[in-house]
């Protein structure tokens, strides 16, 4: 083919143009549901890669009422016929199908008619706030509500809410909201269905009454409703476990299990006499005798010393046996530290040379240091480690100590292609005597040792 050059150029440009026309046609068939699933999947992946950050954030905002969301992230679960039938029988509930089908605890509770109808509405200046019903047990409260009014739709800004006990006290819990389904067209104004998911803090009893206020169109609308404790009074199984296991030479005790219709909680404690620090379980799950798995998306605390994990509830499945399983344990040596020179920008000592000082940046508020944890295999990459103690200190060569300015917890960045995790720490501007030494709390390391603890 010896055509003149510009003809060839034109030809390839026109081929590209044709290609674009076809492309646009293909893009019209965008798989929106799959796209949403990919986005949710990405969030979940992100959570797994940064468990540590997440846990830190919860524990800091737990009693203030954390606004975070896990239910949306548990992925798509098929709507069972039983569930669909119950939903159809209770007027006003159909709008919630999309919201709760990702949460197997809630689906199973609704299938078993565990819902308490409330059906209270308040209206003001064209805005309506309705609480349709609640699901409640000893540990968890789910409030199904609807907001309606001019310009209210799923694009409406996150609605402010306020939750109080009947006496007007704080509800000590982690509270989650904004579980919007996103795979539908948004109308100009439409009723917005959502639920508040309230995970009571350890040992805090479920209130008798709730005052739930929602801000709509600049005004607060309030609904007060009772929680019928009769409905779940006997539906609680407390199991004293006190089973100590040895993993990687470390003693960890599974202390108690609480099984209620909406949640299973299991608490763990690491032995203070352990010679390594237990950082987290690898792939923790509950499994019943039929092989059904109940995953865990949230928890309070830290394995070392004390952790409570929440699992999807097995209550209505009434399994004969329930076993806690994990593939292994993340652990690291005690008393590790890293020594760096921030003038020369060198790493002087670091455990197995994985941790390195990479860069520094002076800002108005201090000096931002970037450390890289390098050469991490796939399992090591799954956890974001709390390298340095939150709001801890470091010392310079003269022995003087300075605070680490990590007011927002550990900041980390993950890089798949380079098998590394980057951490950012801010230190004050000061006249340091180099080098600087930072004590390390958690460090990459794990043992793969199948863990199996019979719960019942």
């Amino acid at each position, binding site marked *: *083919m010896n*055509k003149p*050059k510009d003809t*060839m*150029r034109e*030809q*390839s*440009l026109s*081929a*590209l*143009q*044709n*290609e*674009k026309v*076809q*492309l646009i046609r*293909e*893009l019209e068939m*965008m*798989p929106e549901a*799959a*796209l*949403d*699933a*990919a*986005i949710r*999947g*990405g*969030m979940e*992946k*992100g*959570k797994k*890669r*940064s468990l540590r*950050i997440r846990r830190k*954030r919860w524990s800091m905002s737990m009693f203030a009422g954390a*606004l*975070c*969301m896990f239910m*949306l992230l548990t992925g798509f679960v098929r709507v069972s016929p039983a569930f669909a039938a119950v939903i159809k029988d209770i007027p006003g509930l159909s709008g919630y199908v999309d919201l709760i089908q990702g949460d197997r605890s809630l689906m199973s509770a609704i299938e078993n008619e565990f819902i308490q109808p409330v059906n209270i509405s308040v209206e003001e200046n064209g805005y309506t706030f309705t609480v349709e019903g609640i699901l409640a047990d000893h540990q968890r409260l789910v409030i199904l509500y609807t907001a309606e009014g001019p310009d209210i739709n799923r694009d409406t*800004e*996150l609605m402010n809410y306020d939750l109080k006990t009947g006496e007007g006290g704080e509800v000590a819990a982690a509270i989650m*909201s*904004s579980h*919007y389904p*996103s795979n539908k067209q948004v109308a100009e104004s439409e009723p917005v269905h959502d639920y508040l998911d309230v995970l009571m803090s350890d040992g805090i009893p479920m209130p008798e009454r709730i005052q739930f206020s929602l801000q709509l169109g600049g005004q607060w609308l309030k609904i007060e409703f009772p929680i019928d404790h009769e409905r779940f009074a006997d539906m609680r199984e407390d199991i004293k476990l006190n089973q100590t296991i040895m993993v990687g030479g470390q003693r960890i005790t599974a202390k108690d299990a609480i099984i209620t219709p909406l949640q299973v909680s299991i608490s763990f404690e690491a032995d203070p006499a352990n010679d390594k620090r237990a950082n987290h379980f690898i792939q923790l799950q509950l499994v019943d005798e039929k092989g059904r798995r109940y995953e865990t998306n949230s928890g309070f605390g830290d394995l070392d010393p004390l952790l409570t994990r929440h699992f999807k509830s097995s209550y209505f499945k009434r399994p004969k046996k329930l076993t806690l399983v994990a593939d292994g344990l993340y652990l690291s040596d005690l008393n590790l530290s890293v020594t760096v020179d921030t003038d020369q920008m060198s790493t002087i000592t670091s455990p197995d040379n994985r941790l390195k000082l990479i860069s520094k940046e002076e800002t108005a508020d201090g000096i931002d240091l970037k450390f890289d944890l390098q050469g991490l295999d796939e399992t090591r990459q799954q956890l*974001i480690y709390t390298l340095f103690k939150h709001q801890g200190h470091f010392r310079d060569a003269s022995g003087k100590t300075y605070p680490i300015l990590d007011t*927002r917890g550990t*900041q*980390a*960045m*993950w890089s*798949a*292609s380079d098998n590394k995790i980057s951490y*950012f720490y801010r230190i004050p501007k000061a006249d340091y005597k180099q080098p600087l030494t930072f004590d390390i709390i958690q460090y990459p390391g794990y043992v793969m040792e199948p863990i199996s603890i019979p719960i019942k």
Partner: protein
Amino acid sequence: MSKEEWAKAAIQGDEAALLQRIELDKLQWYAIAYSYMRNETDALEAIQETVCRIWIKIRTLREPRFFTTWSIKILIRVCMDTKRKQKRERPTKVIAMHDEINTIGSESAIAAERLDMAAQVKLLPANYRMVITLKYYRDMTIPEIAMLLEKPDGTVRTWLNKALKLLRMDMSAAKEELWDEQAKGHNAGAVPFRTTK
């Protein structure tokens, strides 16, 4: 709440706000990922990875108003990395778009040329493939592309020219092949590029 307010809340660790903010950009992301990948599975995978990285890095984003640019930069990075991985895994797979090939006569020439173009673009080095995608499939300007790839305008222009040159060469080579096949007869126009099993 405005775009920026969502982004701001997301930076402060509000997951719900992050999802809302992503919602506003997801179509644009998909269009870019699909245009580059040319198949749904890879495009969705790239978006999943992008969301994962955004989730982890969001707190390092300093300016809420730059969310879109920042996230597209990540997406582009992910797309280009995927390409490299795939290349290592299956280096010689050329085309498998069977359903597109059932055209006959003169249409087949256009279809063939188009298919050929899609295949050739796919075989370009990742950076060339990305500039072609952004420029010709997503209609972006050189400065826009330069900003997203964090390269000087001149570099992007050079890449674009080199990419077009490579495509021209590949086009003519591929056409000869096509005509060879047609010369052999039997419905050649209809199945010019099916990979042989």
